[in-house]
């Protein structure tokens, strides 16, 4: 065994995050680490790389006992890691991020030319054509994620750890990443792979370890498992029927229109588009990363001022010049980047859930504590948020659970039009199904939803209508039976070709 972990235990105040966990990693294998949100995957990884100090347990690498005291030491041991949240520095250039700690030097001083060459070398094979001397922060999350992976790969002499690396990548980029990983496996590296996308797990990994509530449940070869069994291991019970596709049931029932957007545009950001949303309708936005889906949503929510366009409902025109105005119009928006735009880390789960509601009521009419408590408990229960209690700071929750809290905040508002930008990113299978079911339920009650997702299956499952976005333009609209993976992919590709010809 390349890496073994024995009886690892880690407690946080009020939480037993890891309880006597064991884990083995062989050279030349991809070992998937699975579990629900809050199962302890990220904690295990952080203990392994010295970011956390475990309470008890032993780690051996190549037969020698190691106890990295800092992530720097772990890197020197040959363990490269991509943490769950993109953990690079947006204020440094791409090259500085890539070479950090191993900068090429000339006469004792860092050579920027050498660094540029080194960085470009490291990015080779990821199909990325970017200027490495620009700040990382100017690039999209997806690009940052790939840079983080490239850095970890270069650092990993023996072990590469990927904690949900694919959460913000699209299919093309995932494929590219997998090629890289397979190559490394062939070179004899041990790779730990965390993901909530079971397809990817089956596609890539050799063995699987499942954690549940901080405990080790099972380690098995992937070949010996099927999807249902795996989910049972993760959840501790069987998953109720997966959500059926929406358009299968509701056939072409055109819903009464509720909101009309016309010519919404912002110069340099998104070209003008029209959008009509019916009551109880789910509109999906499909497109590649960076295509302008988030920007479309931000325009509708008043987060970016539109330079043109009007919005109205049956009553008359709506002003949407700020999030507050949009909220007043009955809109809600769960953003894709939960860390910077979603959670208020130091506030408790209860306060985070009550925040938007409170903001709408105004400061002078506080929501009574008991009411907040009720709300919090209701959503903790309904969305299955894993937390020791409602008073835990949201920042201390696992990534997926943070996402659920943001969702709960907007559900508590009971908006008539809810925009969900990648609502299931980083959410486990159980909760994933739960959220999709929730969308069904809400729309049945009359709420309209705009769903942005990179997972086509998910879009297809819940959308009444799918709009394809490409190069900051809304290029196609698919309805009813016309919605399928093939048609969407086709729409994206076709327009790409047309653009190519036009250019």
């Amino acid at each position, binding site marked *: 065994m390349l890496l073994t972990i024995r009886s690892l235990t880690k407690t946080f105040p009020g939480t037993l995050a890891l309880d006597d966990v064991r884990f083995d990693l062989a050279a030349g294998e991809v070992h998937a680490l699975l579990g629900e949100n809050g199962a302890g995957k990220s904690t295990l990884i952080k203990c392994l790389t010295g970011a956390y100090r475990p309470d008890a347990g032993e780690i051996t690498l190549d037969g020698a006992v190691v106890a990295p005291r800092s992530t*720097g030491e772990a890197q020197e041991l040959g363990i490269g890691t991509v943490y769950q949240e993109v953990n*690079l*520095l947006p204020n440094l250039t791409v090259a500085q991020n890539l070479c950090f700690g191993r900068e090429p030097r000339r006469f004792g001083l860092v050579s920027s030319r050498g660094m540029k060459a080194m960085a470009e070398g490291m990015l080779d094979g990821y199909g990325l054509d970017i200027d490495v*001397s620009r*700040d990382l922060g100017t690039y999209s999350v997806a690009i940052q994620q790939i840079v983080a992976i490239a850095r970890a790969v270069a650092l990993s002499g023996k072990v590469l750890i990927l904690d949900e690396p694919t959460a913000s990548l699209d299919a093309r980029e995932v494929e590219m990443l997998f090629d890289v990983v397979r190559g490394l496996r062939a070179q004899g590296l041990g790779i730990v792979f965390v993901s909530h996308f079971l397809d990817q797990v089956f596609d890539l990994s050799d063995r699987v370890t499942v954690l549940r509530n901080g405990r080790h449940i099972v380690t098995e070869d992937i070949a010996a498992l099927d999807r249902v069994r795996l989910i049972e291991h993760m959840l501790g019970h069987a998953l109720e029927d997966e959500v059926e596709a929406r358009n299968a049931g509701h056939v072409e029932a055109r819903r009464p229109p509720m909101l009309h957007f016309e010519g919404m545009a912002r*110069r340099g950001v998104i070209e003008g588009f029209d959008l009509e949303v019916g009551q109880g309708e789910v509109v999906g936005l499909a497109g590649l990363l960076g295509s302008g889906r988030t920007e479309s949503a931000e325009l509708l929510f008043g987060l970016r001022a539109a330079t043109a366009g009007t919005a109205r409902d049956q009553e008359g025109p709506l002003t949407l010049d700020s999030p507050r105005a949009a909220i007043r119009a009955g809109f809600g928006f769960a953003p894709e980047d939960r860390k910077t735009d979603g959670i208020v880390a130091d506030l408790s789960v209860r306060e985070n859930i009550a925040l938007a509601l409170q903001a709408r009521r105004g400061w002078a009419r506080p929501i009574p504590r008991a009411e907040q408590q009720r709300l919090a408990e209701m959503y903790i229960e309904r969305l299955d948020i894993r937390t020791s209690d409602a008073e835990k700071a949201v920042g201390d929750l696992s990534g997926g659970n943070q996402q659920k809290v943001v969702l709960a905040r907007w559900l508590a508002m009971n908006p008539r039009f809810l925009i969900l930008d990648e609502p299931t990113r980083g959410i486990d299978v159980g909760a994933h199904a739960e959220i999709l079911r929730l969308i069904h339920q809400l729309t049945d009650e009359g709420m309209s939803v705009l769903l942005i997702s990179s997972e086509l299956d998910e879009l297809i499952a819940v959308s009444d209508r799918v709009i394809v976005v490409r190069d900051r333009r809304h290029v196609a609209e698919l309805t009813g039976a016309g919605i399928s993976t093939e048609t969407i992919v086709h729409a994206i590709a076709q327009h790409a070709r047309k653009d190519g010809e036009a250019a």
Partner: protein
Amino acid sequence: MNPRLLPLYATIAIFLVACVICYIQFPYMLSTRVLGNLLTDNAYLGIVAVGMTVVILSGGIDLSVGSVIAFSGVFIAVMLRDTGLPAPVVFVLLLIVTTAFGAAMGGLIHGLAMPPFIVTLAGMFLARGAAYMLTIDSVPIDDPFYEMLRKAYYLMPGKGRLTLIGMVMLLSFAVGMVIAHRTRFGASVYALGGGENTARLMGVQVGRTTVGIYAFSGFMAGLSGIVFSVYTGSGYPLATVGTELTAIAAVVIGGTLLTGGSGFVFGTFIGVMTMGLIQTYIVFDGTLSSWWTKIVIGGLLLLFIVLQKGLLRLTSARFSGGLA
């Protein structure tokens, strides 16, 4: 063009415009004499601002520097008066003391996870208090070596003097630029400014770097203290009150963000020169009363910052527009 350079360019542009305005009003302000004065008079400020830039780049702040400069002057004066040690030895002793002082503050900041603002505030009280304890008098320095340092200058055409201490400042900026932009330590400083946890996950040795940063600032404050003592030829415990705020203002005018992680040492140089220019302008004008002096300094500060912000917004809007 790299967008991170924009604040720097904005700063330089505004500075040049300010120079032109000064020149139009007082043509004599562009003489080598005034230029030499600008370098000499702001030497101590520039040196300490180099240290401050590094601290601020790391997301910290060092309020102790003004007091440390005063302490340095008193320390040197008292040592030269009472011990008979040669001046260079006293310099070395002093630099060791101030560097250790800075390192100790860095150690507290890291070791106890306390905010730098507060630790260095206590350091500010402590250093000034230590200066008082050495002497409450102002102590003149008559040392032949000092005489030599003081008289060391290069006479530029036009009778302007490029003094030794002015050159020490220029050298400090050069060294500061190399350290901040061309060493691993500098990279770690920027990394810390970008976010401590992230920096830690990327393998920055946070503790060692923090101690190093404040030690560097302490060293620069000590060096600035030496320069200041050469400049005034004495040690005075009440000297340089509030210099830390001037230094911070210079760093900010130079385009460095107080939240850390973004900025340039060269920008600070422009910031220091800008502050000096404002002072010179006010003296040349010579009609402002005590109170209007303060108001005008505050107003000009605001003007610079707002102009910079405006310029940045304009150019970055153009920039992102061009991308589409």
